[in-house]
């Protein structure tokens, strides 16, 4: 393992991988070392649903997602790796007037940002997703250019290209502490040695708060268990990712035919626990059977869980830490960090190589927003 590097990236999830790729391949900064305690995509990235959508309720999220989706679209051309990108759309049903209203407001905002989302009638929903029982739906928000990709293949593609460009990727290497001098982080200590560096990126996902603690920082992030299940594969019969905000559930059909579905646990408390409980499959199956009755006889083959890293406004924290300006966070993605990862990588690379960000405004993601009261409204479209 190298003893010095300009940039040390902690964590090889989609965020760390995107940063490594953007730095080395797109921004010419090849003096980068990545440290990962397990293996590539071992954290939330490898456990996530892989969905990406532009249908958000805040302008910040919309913009990030939009730019990221075009990056995923071009993924194979750029990296040579097929990431199974699939433009199946996202459908968010509305069950009452209040939700209809909510969707209309969001669609307006999204359309202002050139996202082709629109309100669809129950009849249109039947066409888009024939397996849904639309009897009680009043319609829904639909965006045909939303979609999904395979998170493993995304991380693989980025890491392989980054490694080709000279990034050293160290798996099974755990960050254990730091050395500082004044307001500078000077060294990263790992289970396999110490690396002297000019700049550190904290992309440790659910464990990013733990990394912060090593520097005495109290980062406003809370890990939260999210359970998810997968069924046996069946012939392709369903295009969009369905996000039902009323019943708290999302589901889609994966490339190989399995249905993948999850929700937010009722009464979830912050913890590192990623074991499953018995309530989850019962609760989730009830909702799935209600929404999409033809799936009833499908068998659940696996249940697992991963950590969402939540922030108080459900929006990420990206950028330098006031206490240590050369310690950059890319954390708190609150359950949608996969779809934001391409642009997150660009923001980080621009910050490090140019000192300023041109790709999109980033004030919304400044960690200081929670202290100085400039935090905006909470993102409402999270499941």
């Amino acid at each position, binding site marked *: 393992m190298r003893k010095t590097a300009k940039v040390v990236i902690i964590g090889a999830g989609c965020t760390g991988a995107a940063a490594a790729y953007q730095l080395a391949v797109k921004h010419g900064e090849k003096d980068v070392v990545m440290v990962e305690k397990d293996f590539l995509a071992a954290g939330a990235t490898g456990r996530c649903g892989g969905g990406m959508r532009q249908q958000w309720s805040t302008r910040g999220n919309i913009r990030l997602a939009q730019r990221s989706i075009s990056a995923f679209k071009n993924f194979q051309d750029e990296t040579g790796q097929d990431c199974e990108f699939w433009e199946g759309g996202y459908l968010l049903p509305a069950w009452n007037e209040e939700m209809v209203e909510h969707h209309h407001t969001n669609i307006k905002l999204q359309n202002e940002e050139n996202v082709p989302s629109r309100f669809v009638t129950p009849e249109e929903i039947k066409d888009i997703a024939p397996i849904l029982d639309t009897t009680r739906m009043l319609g829904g928000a639909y965006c045909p250019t939303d979609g999904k990709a395979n998170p493993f293949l995304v991380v693989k593609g980025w890491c392989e290209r980054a490694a080709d460009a000279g990034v050293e990727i160290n798996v099974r290497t755990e960050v254990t502490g730091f050395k500082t001098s004044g307001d500078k982080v000077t060294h990263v200590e790992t289970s396999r040695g110490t690396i002297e560096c000019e700049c550190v990126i904290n992309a440790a996902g659910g464990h990013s708060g733990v990394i912060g603690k090593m520097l005495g920082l109290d980062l406003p992030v809370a890990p939260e268990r999210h359970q998810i299940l997968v069924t046996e594969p069946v012939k392709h019969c369903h295009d969009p990712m369905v996000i039902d905000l009323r019943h708290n559930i999302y589901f889609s059909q994966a490339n190989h035919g399995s249905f993948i579905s999850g929700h937010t646990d009722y009464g979830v408390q912050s913890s590192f626990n990623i074991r499953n409980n*018995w309530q989850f*499959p*019962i609760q989730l199956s*009830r909702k799935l059977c209600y929404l999409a009755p033809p799936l009833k006889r499908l068998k*659940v*083959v696996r249940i697992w869980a991963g950590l969402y890293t939540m922030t108080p406004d459900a929006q990420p924290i990206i950028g330098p830490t006031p206490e240590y300006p050369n310690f950059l966070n890319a954390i708190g993605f609150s359950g949608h960090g996969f779809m934001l990862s391409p642009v997150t990588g660009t923001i980080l690379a621009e910050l490090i190589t140019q000192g300023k960000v041109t790709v999109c405004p980033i004030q919304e993601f400044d960690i200081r927003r929670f202290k100085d009261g400039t935090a905006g409204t909470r993102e409402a479209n999270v499941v």
Partner: protein
Amino acid sequence: MLETDVLIIGGGPAGMCAAIEAAKLGVKTTVVEDKDRLGGQLVKQTHQFFGSEKHHAGVRGIDIGVKLAGECSDLKVNALTNTTCTGIFDDGSVGCLRGEEFFLIHPKRIVIATGAYENMLPFPDCDLPGVYGAGGLQTLMNVDGVLPGKTYLMVGAGNIGLIVSYQLMQAGAEVVAIVEALDRVGGYEVHAAKVKRMGVPIFLRHTVTHVSGDGKVERATISKIDGSFKPVPGSEFTVSVDAVCLAVGLSPLIELIAQAGCETRYIPECAGHVAVHDSNMRTSLEHIFVAGDASGIEEASAAMVEGRIAGLHAALDVTHGKADSNELLREFDSQLDELRTGPFGQKARQGKSKLWGLKLPPDEEFEEAPPIIPESGKKPVIECPQNIPCNPCAVSCPTESITIGDNITNFPVLDQGTCNGCGNCVAACPGLAVFLVNRDYSDREAEITIPWELTPPPEKGDKGYALDRTGVAICPATVTKIRRVKKIDKKRLLVAFTVPLDKADEARHFVIVEPKGAEKIETLPPADDIIICRCEDVTQKEILDCFNSGYKSFDEIKRYLRTGMGPCQGKTCQRLILGILARELKTHVSELAPQTVRTPMKPTELEIYASSKEIEPWDFENWQPPGGGH
């Protein structure tokens, strides 16, 4: 939700014995068993078991199962058959799937006695129909009454391979050969002798390299292997078979143990990853015990005693030690010690010593018993040359002419003076290793009495051939008598036949038609890749490619290739992939992380979960988020 004091998962010999001991202490005891009846592996064991009387030696496995199940029901054990435990959760509840119902059991203590699963051997076209695991084949043959092929190649000369070969012949099939990768027969010599004298050759240091056929197995190619288990070029030959049976070992089934969060360790002598447990069979989680093959592969006899120990401790926890069971526990411990003596108990002895941090006991060499060859009269010849844990010959003898002594692995010793030639020992020996030889039958002929379990049996007066110990026809023979010793074994026949006097020490089997050996046929080239994960159709090449692009652990390969993500949850492929990884990384499997196991153990329909009564029904019409949240 069903409340119980002690829950036993798995109703094999270990589970049933755990239930019996727990119920004897008066605690509420429940057994869940995946199959439609209690018994586990015993259900398909139509042969007589070894061991001592305490462990039902000489009784057929299936009958032991019935007896233990009867005891369970007498003790009011709540036996839930057709019920699969699919997960153990952190709040202490256990998820079960029974028909169309998903429900929970809430036990105070759990004993996991889920037994073992069969190892697969990967080779080109090993996924062709006609390649069977020995256990699966036994179930077809002995439980379902189906014989799926007529000519077999058996792979593996451990006890299971030898016993199943014999059972195949009992069912009327032909076993063309047994191949064994090691340089010795791993199973008991008495089991090997039984098939050898029926004409089945055992090829040591040989393996099956590939099979071929049009949509099903039609031929199998066998090759010699070198010291590093690689085929020796030019040594291969092909036989015509319609089935290949793999008896290449069992691995402890620990998916529930791992999913529950018990600490596990790879112990080669236990045949795989096992729960770390103490000598009370308690795992690293206080409320969970383990017993039987799930805690390390041994025999049913050891499984039963381990079950008793686990069940008793689980019940003592519940009664807070309100029963004096010390004497009983000491007795169980000494039974286990006894079963684990001798060269055949070596592995278990060493495996458990590793787990318990004890000094490793020294290797014991096999001793060969001298053959006992009586000179005159009608006397038994005992061809039982190894220190196996067994004594029915001695127990069945009315005149106490055969003695084994206190140590069950001692050789049987015959006192010719007191023996009356009754033949009880011939009827009782589960190894079919005792014969009566009467040299005084006539001037020129000796009469040989052999145990007979094949159909159809010969009839008195039948003329045929006597075969020697290797299955070669050596002389003509005539059947003189057929009888049963009902009080010893209702099914087994004793067949007596005459041979020329000078063949008395060689003739050990009788046939009407002279056997012809298997013919060698043309060898076809093997397919160029090998399926490793059958559920997801992943080949060895794909795994190696994945490895070479930097994904070097089971969980990584699983994420990229989906190996182990199918319905079997990696039961078949995990062992093989860890083996490939260990080879490529030049390390040992014990150094590698096994896969993460997740609920459900058995694929469960969405609707079954949805209709579970464990959560009050929901009213979607007037939707209120459960618990008020979200």
